[in-house]
């Protein structure tokens, strides 16, 4: 196949767009997946209780 600049850049532009959309949807779904909420809350809390807390 002749990989000319035109073909490559066209593929780049169209594929890039679809990839962007698919990725954003995928990530949003992951971040807002209901059953994961609990895990995220725990993770957010977890950094606070592994040490005594900041020294003063």
């Amino acid at each position: 196949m002749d990989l000319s600049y035109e073909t490559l850049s066209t593929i780049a532009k169209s594929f890039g767009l679809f990839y962007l959309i698919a990725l954003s949807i995928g990530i949003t779904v992951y971040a807002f997946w209901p059953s994961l909420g609990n895990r995220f809350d725990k993770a957010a809390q977890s950094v606070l209780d592994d040490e005594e807390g900041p020294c003063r």
Partner: protein
Amino acid sequence: MMERLTIAERQQAMLLSGGLALVGLALAIVGRGDAMGVHGWITMIFAGGLFFVVGNALYAPAPTDDRATSYYDDPTKVGILISLFWAVIAMGMGVWVAAQLAWPDLRFDAPWSSFGRIRPVHTSGVIFGFGGNALIATSYHVMQRTSRARLAGHVSPWFVLLGFNLFCIIAASGYLMGITQSKEYAEPEWYADIWLVVVWVVYFVLYMRTLARRNEPHIYVANWYYMAFILVVAVLHIVNNLAVPASFSAAKSYSAFSGVQDAMTQWWYGHNAVAFFLTAGFLGMLYYFLPKRAERPIYSYRLSILSFWGIVFFYIWAGSHHLHYTAVPQWVQTLGMTFSVMLLVPSWASAGNALMTLNGAWGKVRDDATLRFMMVAAVFYGLSTFEGSFMAIRAVNSLSHYTDWTVGHVHAGAMGWVALITFGSIYALVPILWRRESMYSWKLVEWHFWLALGGTVIYVFAMWNSGIIQGLMWRTYTESGTLAYSFTDSLVAMHPYYVARTIGGAFFLTGAIIGAFNVIMTIRKVHEQTPELDYPTKSEAGEPAVPAAE
């Protein structure tokens, strides 16, 4: 420090440093007559020194207790101290180069002291020496605490830390001798680049192995940022540094790329060095130390995940905004511009997330300079990402590019964001690491904070002014349609701002010196205090780390 290594580990360390010293010797012999030979000797002295330090303590008593019940903090401690050392050196160099632009004769009558040679010492020293060591040190701390597990290995953390510093030393000494590839922020030559790849692979494996030991089902988001930093920097570094050496007995090499392709590769690297070295890694710091210090969980964990992927995905496209109106095809420029503007969304999501975390704890921010460092860092992160997106717009870029505005933008990010979050994290970390009641002097932390903030503001305002004036002077026409100002006219107009910039930089440097002093005094003078809980535990959630075998 040696008492926490077993005899076998000490032997392993001696083997590694001995081997490295031999590599240095080989380099010194092959590269004699070239500056590469000097690097061979530096490597040999560095590795040979380590060999003797370890060898001296080879038969000192070995550890008897179960090491898995505590965290391994020695490399973190050393990393923090080295980072502060580089901060003072590299920011000092920065003040000097800045002064040279105001008073060009402020140099020695020797080739090494010219602007072109010491400027990369400043940039690499700050980015890699100060920033890189701070990232490695804090990543060791964060990966252990969030995984509730000890570092996976006792020699490899040292290998990464010291190996990385050998790279920094070779880089900085090379610039003074005129060894450079000229690729900005990727100046070191081929042998240093190969060495960094080795170090980086070990770093990645260490991180993965430590995560694999974790007693926590979920990998905390700070680790994601550190991982992105390690992974993407590796890819960028390898691709951008592809080169053919003119001879294997000399330093000089020629990039595999030329012209347009090289420009695109270089700024793909350059901008993503900003993204993954100076942003992702330091966001990892922010997402751990800010909630920790504020004693509040991050405002929205979901938002932190969304902005993580946003940053990883968008940033990589943005490099071509460095090449507006150049010979790079226009569609590439447009893509770069579009993604740079979109990048504002995840960037502000991160900055907003940090500030919302502090909402309700403003009293703490007022009283605690350490937390204030982090708060102001988040504000500067928001400001400089906005500015970055703005400057990536073609029309704005036509004015700002090639001027001091770019320099001001970079320093708003580097001083206001990167350095402030690092200093904040260091002040939070030092008492925990060295088991001290508090920092030696809170007044000095306050002094450091205000000097750093004042210095940054002076610097950035000076550069905004000079950059915009410069850009406007270059494009001003007289009524008869000729250019109104010569280049020299624009240079003369810069002088007061170059003086102001030097003063701003000196403020910032003074703050860093005070910080380094404060840390050393904390270690030497402040009483010890053993925290109740700072060792690996099972997850508070009670879930077993490794579910029963399937």
